[in-house]
């Protein structure tokens, strides 16, 4: 388990979560999820498994599965930290990613999960800066980023610095 909040459990994703996560990603709108989701389920599964296999072991973090504490089998979304390439820095940047399934939105789950993840990022992981890429039309996501303390930087990029800085 990665983190626990009042209502949620954040844990590493596994192969068993795939079908639920794939459904969630397919049903998400274009402005909610900017990475391409393959139409072929087998291709998506291959990408998903290789992601789990490499990213967790190389970096020690990645996108995690979010489920309800009262029913841990109920997966409601995916949140986490992702290493991404950056034009300005060869070391890349760390992005906060969050996707909550439509029936579970507007309940504060994303805020709760992201707060726990940012605490982990700036604390145990020692990350100094976290970014978020948000589509200009995704007003809810931008509002969440603002509540988390992110500041708009440029184009679709929002930035949050470690509170220690």
């Amino acid at each position, binding site marked *: 388990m990665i983190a626990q909040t009042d209502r949620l459990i954040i844990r590493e994703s596994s192969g068993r979560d795939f079908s639920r996560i794939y459904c969630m990603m397919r049903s998400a709108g274009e402005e909610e999820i*900017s*990475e*391409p989701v393959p139409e072929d389920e087998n291709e998506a599964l291959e*990408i998903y498994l*290789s*992601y789990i296999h*490499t*990213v967790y072991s*190389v970096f020690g973090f990645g996108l995690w599965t979010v489920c309800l504490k009262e029913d841990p089998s109920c997966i409601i979304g995916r949140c986490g930290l*992702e*290493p*991404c*390439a*950056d034009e300005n820095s*060869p*070391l*890349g940047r760390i992005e906060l990613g969050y996707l909550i399934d439509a029936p579970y939105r507007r309940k504060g789950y994303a805020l709760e999960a992201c707060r726990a993840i940012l605490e982990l990022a700036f604390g145990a992981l020692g990350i100094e800066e976290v970014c978020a*890429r948000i589509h200009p039309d995704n007003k809810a996501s931008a509002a969440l980023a603002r509540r988390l303390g992110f500041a708009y930087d440029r184009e679709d990029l929002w930035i949050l610095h470690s509170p220690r800085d």
Partner: protein
Amino acid sequence: MSGYRKLSRTASQRKALLRNQVTALIYHGRIITTEAKAKETQKIVEGLIALAVKEKDDYTTVKVMAKVPRKDKDGKRVKEVVNGKKQTVYDEVEKEIRKDNPARLHARRQMLKMLYPVTEVPQEAAGRKRNTKEVDIPAKLFDEIAPKYANRNGGYTRIIKIGQRRGDGAMEVVLELV
């Protein structure tokens, strides 16, 4: 097909980008980039490490006399008055240095052709200027990286795919020293 990727850049921009990536990889040991850039960077870095491995022990140790300023217990230079002028007092000490043999010196210069200078600036505000140092990347290649790979014939780096980039879908990878 040509032997290299143009990476959508003019020759000078491409060279600058690759020099940046190569320097960062050797300095940090790992970079995150796109697959196309990583493959081009990998070609160059493999060559540099092979060069470092080949020439790592090609030096002679020589003794030289060095003039070192004498310092007091506070670390300040000791001064003496000569002809009414304050001058620093120097001591002559024998120092052992490693002198590159011609092949190694050439290798060092080949490396410097590709590497950018790196300056290390400490995080703490106190003494930031005093502790800012230029990092000797060829020395790192010869003394830290090359000994690790002495028994390896190539394959000093690895590319790990981490997913597609948001936006244009380019594959993002980690390029790291093995």
